[in-house]
């Protein structure tokens, strides 16, 4: 099966918000006024639209993407990136969550990922729903949707590094395979 070039990040839909607006948000989220937003501060500030706590694993993934010094959180400059990242995903999610339920089903997930350039089988979409449906509803909520896209992106990147002739197939040893899935290549 061929694979194409999924986006590195969601398409840039929003104009960048002004600094004063972001600073206000940053101060409200940074509850302990440390100048750094931690996992739990960000988690409390985020909503997945379904009245359940935001997936902590997604929060960790997002923070580690923007936390340059590995300090376990994001400062104001880095927060601008986090804010944009989340609002961009939110806009994408809303496009596919047509009934505004806070969840997307298998078909909507397929449309979204196809839009990003992924070409995957129907069976694999079933696997994705089963794995990322944290609330066990047969559908995927916003936070789990982001996590699903992050995981796919990471695995696709590592696959591409080994698929040097770009034919959609790789040959790897045991240790190479483990290094790929543990993301320590």
């Amino acid at each position, binding site marked *: 099966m061929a694979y194409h070039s999924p986006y590195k990040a969601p398409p840039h839909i929003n104009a960048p918000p002004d600094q004063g607006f972001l600073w206000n948000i940053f101060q409200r989220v940074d509850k302990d006024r440390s100048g750094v937003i931690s996992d739990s501060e960000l988690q409390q500030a985020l909503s997945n639209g379904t009245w359940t706590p935001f997936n902590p694993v997604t929060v960790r993934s997002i923070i580690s993407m923007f936390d340059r010094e590995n300090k376990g959180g994001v400062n104001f400059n880095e927060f601008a990136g986090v804010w944009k990242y989340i609002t961009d995903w939110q806009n994408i999610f809303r496009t596919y969550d047509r009934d505004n339920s806070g969840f997307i089903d298998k078909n909507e997930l397929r449309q979204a990922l196809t839009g990003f350039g992924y070409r*995957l089988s129907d069976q694999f979409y079933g696997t994705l729903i089963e794995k990322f449906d944290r609330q066990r509803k047969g559908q995927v909520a916003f936070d789990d949707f982001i996590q699903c896209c992050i995981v796919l992106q990471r695995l696709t990147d590592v696959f591409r590094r080994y698929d040097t002739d770009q034919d959609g197939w*790789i040959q790897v040893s045991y240790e190479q395979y483990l290094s790929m*899935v543990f993301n320590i290549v």
Partner: protein
Amino acid sequence: SILPSGNIPPGVNPEAYQWFQTVDTDHSGFINPKELKQALVNSNYSAFNDETCLMMINMFDKTRTGRIDLFGFSALWDFIQRWRVLFQQHDRDCSGSISGMELQQALAQMGYNLSPQFSENLVRRYAMRGARPGIQLDRFIQVCTQLQSMTQVFRERDTGMTGNIRLSYEDFLSGAVTRLM
């Protein structure tokens, strides 16, 4: 509580039973990931990380409801105790964390044929910031469980036992998504 106190059902570890009563703070008869996280600590008293808690909930949640009942918790309890013993055995300097070299020795004893560099890379990936390079019990459990599971995925595809596999893009994704979490 779903059960009268002092009445431990057969097959349930008594220590796990006591913990379950304490941890099930909303007395729902089930433990969710948040309650589990509050119940488990590493040697340095840090809470277990979210990924490991979620992984273990998924392993022991036979009802597929995202939470575990008393029986699931008891099995999970025994599972953690077994890893804890192994962890302490290989934490030779009793630092409460396992270094790359200690992990390499633990994996070799479990029968894995992996390079020292592999263990070093794993530890570096999961090491806590600020601390000296090493992984706590929670990461040790996560890494060892995932290694078992991903080795199984590799073996299923290495039918000729050559130590090399040819893998399509979707098969690669599918193996990792299905078994890594």
